[in-house]
């Protein structure tokens, strides 16, 4: 189950967001060795966790937090523009109203099997794509692990924004990418994660009520919390 938190329902999710900051630290900083400047020990909240941020929280059946992701507008400062600009060395950093940045895409593998972890990953991708389609967000930028970039080529139309770059901190290669969030991508990701069950994405806000071309169709597929 994915729950989406935006400005409209933020007040109801104070505890969940705090738990997400702690989970992000545990998985990304302690586990994956991300080097986040000035991070508070035990608590990963950065300058891009703002009032405009939209969060995607993945829960298991017992409502344990398993994963998360966030979207930020690209017309205001965001990770690629302020921290990883050198990753976009092809044609610059896309900054448009209908382009958002996807970041802090994290799944706490913990005791999950590989296929369960893949499933949560896909469910977050699905929720992010459905939300984007329903809210007029046509493209997402993100800084992806090389393996995630490779996977994204299958899920969305994906284009590189720059050359792959290797980071010693976490012994990983990253590629900045831009992906198209289209109804076709939604269909494709739904097929991959066998998401015929509409409960898979649960929207806890009014995000789907905005007057956008795809909103009514998307709303039918979603269950309101």
């Amino acid at each position, binding site marked *: 189950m994915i729950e989406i938190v935006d400005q409209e329902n933020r007040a109801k999710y104070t505890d969940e967001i705090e738990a997400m900051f702690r989970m992000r630290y545990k998985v990304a900083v302690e586990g994956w060795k991300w080097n986040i400047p000035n991070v508070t020990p035990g608590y990963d909240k950065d300058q891009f966790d703002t009032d405009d941020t939209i969060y995607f929280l993945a829960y298991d059946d017992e409502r344990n937090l398993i994963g998360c992701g966030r979207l930020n507008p690209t017309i205001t400062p965001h990770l690629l523009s302020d921290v990883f600009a050198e990753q976009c*060395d*092809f044609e610059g950093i896309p900054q448009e109203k209908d382009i958002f940045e996807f970041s802090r895409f994290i799944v706490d593998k913990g005791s999950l099997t590989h296929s369960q972890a*893949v*499933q949560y990953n896909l469910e977050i991708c699905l929720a992010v794509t459905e939300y984007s389609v329903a809210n007029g967000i046509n493209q997402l930028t993100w800084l992806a692990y*090389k393996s995630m970039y*490779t996977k994204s080529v*299958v899920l969305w139309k994906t*284009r590189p924004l720059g050359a*792959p770059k290797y980071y010693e901190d976490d012994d990983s*290669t990253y590629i900045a990418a831009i992906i198209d969030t289209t109804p076709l991508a939604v269909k494709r990701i739904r097929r991959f994660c066998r998401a015929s069950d509409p409960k898979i994405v649960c929207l806890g806000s009014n995000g789907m009520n905005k007057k956008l071309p795809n909103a009514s169709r998307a709303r039918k597929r979603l269950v309101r919390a």
Partner: protein
Amino acid sequence: MNKPFALDALSVIEEIESQEHEEDVLAIFYKFITKFGFNSVLIGQLVNPILKQKSDLPIALSTWPDEWSERWLKEKYIIHDPITQYLLKSRKPFLWSTAHAHATKFGKKIVNESRDFNFKDGIVFPISTGTGPLGCISIGADIVDLQPKDLAILELVAIHCYMHLEKLTGQDEHSSMINLSKREIEVLHYVAEGKTNWEIASILHLSEHSIKEYLHNASQKLNSTNRAHSVSLAIQRGYIIP
């Protein structure tokens, strides 16, 4: 990054992804790598040849001479070839010569035989979407002389080329992904150890009926014909480790 290089990569990616036939993808990719001095390409999915028949290999495209391709497949060189061995533990592109330096005695024999077909050096791009490699794109040249920006461009194009082929052949990892539950995997693990349903029921504090149910569900998901087949498929798909 030099702009023409970037635009070249983006346009070849666009061209590759607009193709509907595997051979055309290979031809475009081949034409692209010749600009960097390469003269052969192999695009291969990493499979265990003991578990998969040649006819089941979904992605195996190359510009290799037929005689060498046939020998490599028939003799199951994939098991001993130092490049496939090195691929199993590498996430970053590597030179053939680096892999050759780690060759076993039999691996060295394969390398020597390949020299007769004019294979000298090359570079391998491992393709992975998660834990292990799915396969690779291996390109050969007389001498590999790449600038870091060339390597970066080639790697990006290789990723798009491989994944587009997966799309075309319907072999993408997730399309064949089967969601076995934690319990189903646990039960299959004990079946693989030779335990009876009664024994598994005792270990897991469940009824024998429940164990049968879990195995039945797993069998349906895996599309298997019996217990042994379920175990074999679960191993192939990495749910249980033998």
